[in-house]
């Protein structure tokens, strides 16, 4: 209880500070209790200091695009590992899972070279490319598929359905909790990623929210307008926060019903 309170304090301050009319040197900037009149001036200033509509758009496209491709790669591979028998299966599975450990931030230097060679440097597709295969997702989907009784597939097989048809029409609808859990993990992590998009893009038109926020809160030679920074942070975090509060029950239950236990 007390701990939970401790957990929300930073958010509480973010809200209060962003509503407090900006004064870089006010003595009570740290106070959690709003004193005096509140205003939305900081939000207006943060909004005009950055290109939020563009950053939101790019971040949506990036996260959505990654997720769409991942759903395909991950379901197909997950199915193969869950249901099929083929030479080298266990070895391949381990090789796939290695990616779990070899995350893109560690491979920034060589991956940048690859992007340039593929003419994907400074494009959203380039930022997304290393994430299009997901070991985490393959693992999750394999677990999820295994919880689905084989009887469903056999019925479809008898009807002469192809494997792809089975996956698409029979298994995927049943595997929704697993996909939802994976979608949450995928979207939150890519929404929040900073280092890789910073390196892989250069023009303002490809900046995502985290990069945009860092570039406008990083002041090297002068002081900071805390209220504006708090407001900017709120803009970045808001969509996911709202989504989580609205769908909390579904979020938690998909974690429960997916294979991750």
């Amino acid at each position: 209880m007390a701990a939970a309170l401790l957990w929300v304090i930073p958010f509480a301050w973010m809200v209060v500070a962003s509503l407090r009319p900006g004064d870089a040197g006010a003595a009570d900037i740290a106070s959690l209790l709003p004193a005096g009149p509140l205003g939305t001036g900081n939000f207006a200033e943060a909004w005009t200091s950055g290109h939020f509509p563009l950053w939101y758009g790019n971040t949506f496209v990036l996260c959505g695009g990654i997720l769409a491709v991942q759903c395909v790669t991950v379901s197909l591979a997950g199915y193969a590992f869950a249901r099929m028998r083929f030479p080298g299966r266990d070895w391949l599975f381990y090789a796939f899972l290695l990616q779990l450990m070899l995350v893109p931030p560690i491979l920034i230097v060589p991956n940048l070279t690859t992007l340039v060679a593929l003419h994907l440097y400074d494009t959203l597709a380039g930022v997304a490319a290393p994430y299009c295969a997901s070991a985490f997702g393959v693992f999750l989907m394999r677990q999820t598929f295994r919880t689905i009784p084989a009887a469903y597939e056999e019925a479809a097989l008898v009807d002469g359905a192809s494997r792809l048809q089975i996956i698409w029409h029979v298994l995927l609808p049943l595997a929704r909790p697993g996909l939802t859990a994976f979608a949450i993990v995928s979207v939150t992590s890519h929404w929040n990623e900073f280092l890789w998009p910073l390196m892989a893009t250069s023009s303002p038109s490809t900046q995502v929210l985290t990069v945009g926020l860092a570039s406008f809160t990083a002041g090297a030679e002068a002081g900071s307008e805390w209220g504006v920074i708090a407001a900017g942070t709120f803009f970045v975090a808001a969509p996911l926060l709202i989504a989580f509060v609205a769908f909390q029950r579904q979020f938690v239950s998909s974690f429960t019903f997916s294979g991750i236990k």
Partner: protein
Amino acid sequence: MRILQVATMAFGLMTGAAHAATELDLFFPVPVQGKLATEMQRLIEEFDKTHPDIHVTAVYTGSYDDTNLKTRAAIQAGKPPGAVIMSANFVREYAINEDAIPLDSIIAKSGETPAQFMEKFWPALRINAIEQGHVYGVPFQNSTPLMYYSVDAFKEVGLDPDHPPATWQEWADALRKLAKHDGDKTTRWGVMFPGTYDYLGWIVSGLAMANGGQYYNTGYGGEVYYNTPTTIGAVKLIDTMIHQWHVMPEGVTDANAVTTAFFQGRTAMMVLSTGSLSFVRENMKTPYKVAFLPRQFVNAAPIGGASLIIPRGNSPERQAAAWTLINWLTSPEIAGGWSRFTGYFAPRIAAYDLPEMKTYIAEHPDAKVALDQLAYARGWFSTYNVVGVRKALEDGVQAVLSGKATPEAAMAKAQAEADALMKPYVEQTALKLPH
């Protein structure tokens, strides 16, 4: 008649398409948020309007270090920006690594020798713009460290705000009067300055130079003077301020914390860039003044700020367009306007002959102090592997700030580290004998 109009319009469009404007990116760091970025965008729009054959996009690239990183990445990716406003102390490394192009031949096209061209800028700025006799950078926004002090705090302890401390001795006396302690707690510090990377090295170099030192070799990128009496003395001064006089907080404080403390009256003085003049002017509620960085033997202050460079990999057309942009941005009118907006001083000497600039200087005595200090300005620390070499010193000084090392030991270690980082360059240059 109408048909003719349409035809001419169509023709106009076709020729317009034939003379497609040269597309350029300008990478620019802005060391303060929001407002300056907006002003830069406005400037570039104005440039685009007055130069129909060039289309420039201003790309805000974060801090100086971020800008450096992104410029490198863009060059390696084969997508270099047309021009970059680059931290002036990185220019040497760009020249050494041949990542920026020498501007001599472009300057020659406008009928000037490189030397004549550089004469238009303040002398102290030329050091960081020229490498091995060739011009690589054109100064755009420049700064020096200044001492900001609260008039009220001075009056409260009986110091004359019109006569700020000028020497280290006077500084020490003033600091000990200004700091207020309440038991273990300090209610007001004497002085604060940023101890974070980049800023710290700059301020230490200023103190070392004021102590009679050179700090680094202005003519050669493979030598720094950390383990020398002048630098050790400067670090000792800081150490004494913190651990003996207790007039400065222990540990590393960042620029945000320093300005916030100054605005809240929790420090009587701060050492900060002239680039912060406008920000302080807008946010400081009580009267304040600025003064030169105090001296032990000589007045000295390192230059800071940024120069325009043209990265390698640009076509001759793009180079020419970039040069037009650079000339426009550094013209007395534009540079003067930017200076008034930001608090940086204008690198062009002629900017200060403009009437609006004369009014500005008369109205803002703090800007006048910054300008006067220019007479004593020195080059900005720049070497091969400059970030690492700078960090070697800063790690050492940070250890001193936190009471974890003595100035002597810290500087000996910093020197060894810096030498190791510069070794590959030194071996291939100064230590390489003719065949």
